[in-house]
């Protein structure tokens, strides 16, 4: 009976506080023991302050949110939002519901978030910026800042979507994310396909000479297909990465070594 009078509504300013806290702190406390646990708890503190007023309750809530947590940082606001809605309704009476929601969502959200907001995001944004930077265009260094600020907006939206829809929408939401993921993959692959001829400029400087006859190998290759050597290097790397015991660090040394040898022999240049 007394519980209902104790429940205080979370308002917009609390949500904003959580938003700024998660933006600053969800990842910074990342550690090998509880991963994002510290950052998650940090982000929830405005809510804890609002909802719980006894020392025991506060301590209980802090401990609940310091538990192991890890997901994609862009998706994290969604889970925070859903958590806030749950605790606003039920307080700490149903800790299991909070826990199972967090654990249930963090895995799938990590997978989909890391694909869309890390892998594909980076592929598109940094392909374009690197291309511009290679041309000496300072905008190459500024472009990632613009897209990063756009991501702030996405995170803010996710916090509210999570709060309003809670667990209900999770499955429907991940369906529409799945479609978005595929569309983003298409864009990502088109961009990295174009990246090969745009940024890898290696060719064959070797000129065949016998008596009067000179043949420029590069010219002949270009007639068949432009950027033949870059494509070959990418495919070689792709193939090597698929082999057992191959790591990207090993591949760096293989390419470094290959470049030195073929460059010194004037086969590539």
């Amino acid at each position, binding site marked *: 009976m007394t519980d209902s009078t104790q429940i205080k509504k979370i308002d917009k300013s609390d949500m904003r506080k959580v938003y700024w806290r998660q933006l600053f702190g969800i990842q910074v406390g990342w550690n090998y023991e509880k991963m994002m646990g*510290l950052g998650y708890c940090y982000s929830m503190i405005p809510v804890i302050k609002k909802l719980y007023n006894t020392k025991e309750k506060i301590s209980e809530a802090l401990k609940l949110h310091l538990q192991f947590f890890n997901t994609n940082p862009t998706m994290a606001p969604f889970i925070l939002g859903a958590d806030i809605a749950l605790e606003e309704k039920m307080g700490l009476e149903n800790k299991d519901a909070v826990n199972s929601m967090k654990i249930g969502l963090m895995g799938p959200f990590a997978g989909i978030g890391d694909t869309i907001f890390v892998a594909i995001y980076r592929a598109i944004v940094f392909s374009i910026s690197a291309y511009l930077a290679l041309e000496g265009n300072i905008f190459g260094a500024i472009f990632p800042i613009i897209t990063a600020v756009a991501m702030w907006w996405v995170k803010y939206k996710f916090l509210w979507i999570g709060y309003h829809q809670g667990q209900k929408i999770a499955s429907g939401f991940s369906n529409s994310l799945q479609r978005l993921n595929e569309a983003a993959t298409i864009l990502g692959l088109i961009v990295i396909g174009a990246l*090969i001829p745009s940024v890898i400029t290696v060719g064959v400087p070797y000129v065949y000479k016998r008596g009067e006859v000179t043949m420029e190998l590069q010219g002949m290759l270009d007639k068949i297909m432009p950027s033949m050597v870059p494509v070959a290097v990418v495919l070689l790397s792709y193939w090597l990465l698929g082999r057992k015991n191959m790591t990207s660090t090993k591949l760096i040394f293989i390419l470094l070594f290959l470049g030195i040898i073929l460059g010194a022999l004037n086969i*590539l240049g």
Partner: protein
Amino acid sequence: MQILLISLYAFISDVDGLTFQMGLSNAIFAGAFTGIVVGDIKLGLAIGATLQLMGLGVATYGGASVPNYKAAAMLGTAFAAITGQSIEFAIGIAVPVGILLTHMGTLVRFVNVFFQHKAEKYADEANLTGVSRSNALCCLTWGFGAAIPVFLGLYFGSEVVGFVTDKIPVWLLTGLKVSGKILPAMGIAILMRYLPLKKFYPFMILGFAIAAFLNVSLVGVAIIGFAIAAIWLMIKNQGLQVQSQDEGGDIDD
């Protein structure tokens, strides 16, 4: 002075990368910033871009440790400016440095366990500010974890690099140039492994063909790609709507 400025950037950008993510923490910006400090921004942009391309497919998924391309961009740009060597040479030097620094991130994540424990203690006492402070203090571990290696690398590295460049044979220099040119292929290859290439490979061929045969700039290809992705999304959404209408009809019957 320059060393301090670059180290300060290393500190701030690493914290930014873990907090607000304003886009300061990447090899391109690192190269550009170092370039401005040493007086050659184009050099920094080019070195940063090449290293960023190498790391295109590599990210810290779930806290994995990856080569530190950002520190590599800073050190590479500084060394190239000091020695007057080519961009490709700088990359050849910077890449092993980046690999060497892979484990700084691992170290920081271990140190942060200490703050997690502190926070748990504060939680027992219901000390909200204590928990907040524990999390915020992790900024320091990240910042110093990034700034100290860069500072040491710049402070002691320049002489070593200067010495090495005096002795380095010409064939090795030409070779390193080629290495610098082919290393971006790795970033692309890693992405090809990560993305569902088997299902969507025609789109990659399409992107390649537009750029290689029609000489469209990458920005142009990205816009075409965006349109294609949007069209694909429309078709897909329409398909789903038709499907759900059909299902709805069945239930009504």
